[in-house]
């Protein structure tokens, strides 16, 4: 099989470049160049300029730096400290305590942000330092964040569901609705795991103040007011018809600045520090996205992903076997390409197989999101891992290790929606016609 060999050659090149310490974005660009030059007749330089320009001037991506900036501003206020102070008396009985803030914070923020990188970056900027300070196990605080950041894709709005809906002519509204229950299912799975882990590793979760009284709990609530107001204002602006989800990100920055000003932490220095922090993080992610976009196009020209998918189609598998084979395929491809690219490159080949197997396309969209979420946290190319490396300075493999349990939980999520497809299809089926 020729595409398989081509793929292996490119993998080896990718590994050499990454291991030599070449920056991730350059490694992706380098593999793209190699792929086009070795296996296609396409003009390499032109492909690079045209496709990277096309993917970099995107309105949909404009939300990303805004959310990152918002996280940087909030990080410099007392907001995250207050948030934890407000929540901790409520979570003393729950094993894992404040680790759940990562999961729930991401789940709530996912209702605003359509991308998992933005979700992980914004929430992580606030929670990671705070959890670290309080002595939570670093691997767990990183892992929960890497895992729950992926909720950004499943809980509507979602960039990947839009891409899938447009490519397959499915209703985006229905896909969004279909993501709600699976999103909650993941929240339950993640929280369940944190509870279990904490019972087994009590030393990983620092003790909070013993048994707070109801009075103390109620008093603590006032610390939650700012963050609640902030989230409600952003979500409210969308539902009031004032802002699109992408636009709401910019409102997030404005509200955060106001909050920071009200709390007295806004000054020239903190403003500039937040802004330049956002500049660096967004440039880092944007450059990797550019590299990934170029690699995607190179893969499109080589035809490797398409032919591998077609090879699966040629096996004429039963529905369950097909899903199993596709899951392995997506996990493997998702290690090296960004998940959305895999979907874009292979829908033309995969959707006919899926239809022939009699699978519902709305359901399949949710399945796709789950496997794309896995791709976000598998090394070497996983955007949540990059975001967390940027946030914590820890090595990507360490972070991937922290995220591994959540990768497995996503696998369980896939099994669950395969066994109980209604988790995804029940809500949209209730939508019906007007």
């Amino acid at each position: 099989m020729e595409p398989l060999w081509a793929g292996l050659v490119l993998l080896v090149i990718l590994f050499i470049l990454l291991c030599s310490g070449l920056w991730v974005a350059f490694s992706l660009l380098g593999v793209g160049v190699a792929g086009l030059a070795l296996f296609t007749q396409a003009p390499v330089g032109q492909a690079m300029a045209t496709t990277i320009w096309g993917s970099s001037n995107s309105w949909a991506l404009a939300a990303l730096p805004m959310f990152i900036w918002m996280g940087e501003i909030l990080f410099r206020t007392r907001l995250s400290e207050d948030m934890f102070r407000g929540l901790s008396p409520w979570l003393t009985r729950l094993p894992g305590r404040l680790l759940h803030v990562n999961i729930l914070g991401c789940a709530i923020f996912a209702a605003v942000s359509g991308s998992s990188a933005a979700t992980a970056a914004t929430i992580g900027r606030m929670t990671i330092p705070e959890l670290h300070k309080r002595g939570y196990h670093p691997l767990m605080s990183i892992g929960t964040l890497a895992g729950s950041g992926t909720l950004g894709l499943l809980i509507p709005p979602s960039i990947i569901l839009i891409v899938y809906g447009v490519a397959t002519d499915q209703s985006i509204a229905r896909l969004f609705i279909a993501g709600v229950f699976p999103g909650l299912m993941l929240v339950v799975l993640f929280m369940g795991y944190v509870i279990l882990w904490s019972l087994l590793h009590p030393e990983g979760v620092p003790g909070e103040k013993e048994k707070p009284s109801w009075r103390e709990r109620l008093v603590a609530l006032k610390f939650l007011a700012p963050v609640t107001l902030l989230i409600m204002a952003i979500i409210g602006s969308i539902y009031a018809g004032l802002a699109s989800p992408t636009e709401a990100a910019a409102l997030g920055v404005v509200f955060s600045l106001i909050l920071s000003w009200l709390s007295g932490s806004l000054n020239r220095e903190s403003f500039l520090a937040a802004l330049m922090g956002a500049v660096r993080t967004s440039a880092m992610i944007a450059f990797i996205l550019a590299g990934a976009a170029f690699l995607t196009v190179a893969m499109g020209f080589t035809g490797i992903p398409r032919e591998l998918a077609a090879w699966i189609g040629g096996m004429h598998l039963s529905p369950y076997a097909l899903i199993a084979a596709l899951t392995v395929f997506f996990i493997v491809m998702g290690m090296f390409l960004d998940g959305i690219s895999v979907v874009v490159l292979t829908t033309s080949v995969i959707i006919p197989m899926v239809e022939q197997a009699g699978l519902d396309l709305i359901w399949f969209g949710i399945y796709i999101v789950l496997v794309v979420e896995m791709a976000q946290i598998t090394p070497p190319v996983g955007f949540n891992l990059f975001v967390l490396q940027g946030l914590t300075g820890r090595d990507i493999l360490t972070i991937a290790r922290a995220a591994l349990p959540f990768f497995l939980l996503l696998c369980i999520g896939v099994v669950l929606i395969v066994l109980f497809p209604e988790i995804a299809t029940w809500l949209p089926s209730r939508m019906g016609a007007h």
Partner: protein
Amino acid sequence: AATWDMPTPYGDKTFHTVNIRQFAKDVEQATGGKLKINVHSAGSLIKHPEIKNAVRRGLVPIGEVLMSRLSNEDPVFAVDSIPFLATNYDEARKLWEASRPVIEKKLKQQGLMLLFAVPWPPQGIYAKKEIRSLDDMKGLKMRAYNAATETLAKLAGAVPTQVEVPDIPTAFSTGRVDAMITSPSTGANSKAWDFVKYFHHTQAWLPKNMVIVNAKAFAKLPADVQKAVKDAAKKAEVRGWEMSKKETADKIAILKKNGMVIVTPTPELMAGLKKIGEQMTADWAKKAGADGEAILKAYRGQ
């Protein structure tokens, strides 16, 4: 044997894509595999805004693009998007015959060659409430995505509103937009009944997708292959127009089946809209200069 990568903007279920895949198959068969065209649908290889330039610069030899996307470059490309100039398939065909030489000339200046063009079904107004006359459009927030749709909305007394395609369902359900103008195809494919109730079959215009090739890449093909491509293109154009006609009826039926109200526009509304159309035709002719005059003359002379 040569292999051509062909980026197209729309999904596999869109009839344009189905037609193009058939075209690719025809070419491969007619040339005995000497030319194979790999269709990359839904912007999976090159995204819509970059397709024309990618073909012009030779990054890919062939591609599909919505003709009126180029209207900011040259008003001539907007000829099939002038409201109420050509409002059914026969008129659209006449207009296409009248404009084709000019379009081909303009593309040639960029080193591009036109293979074939296929119209979308006629554009209608999707709205949350029924529109019976221009008065009902007053203050309606109507989606505008380019200069022409902005002018149209303004002239109709509506408020032009910018909404990006993926954001349309959310924009309707949160009230940022009340109406949009597009084809029954796009409406049915995006399940418009999820967020809007009325479809007014105004048949405002029939915009076309065109398939273009890089002239240099085409010249490199052997003569028999060139002929096979041209023949297949001719067949694809005829087939595409038929598919489009059928699509109109089919997709309106789907809209209806899913509970949308299909409104035959009142004479009052049509009179108002046609008047706007006349003004926009005159404006366009002024902008498009001699080429525009020639097209209109040829169109009306037939």
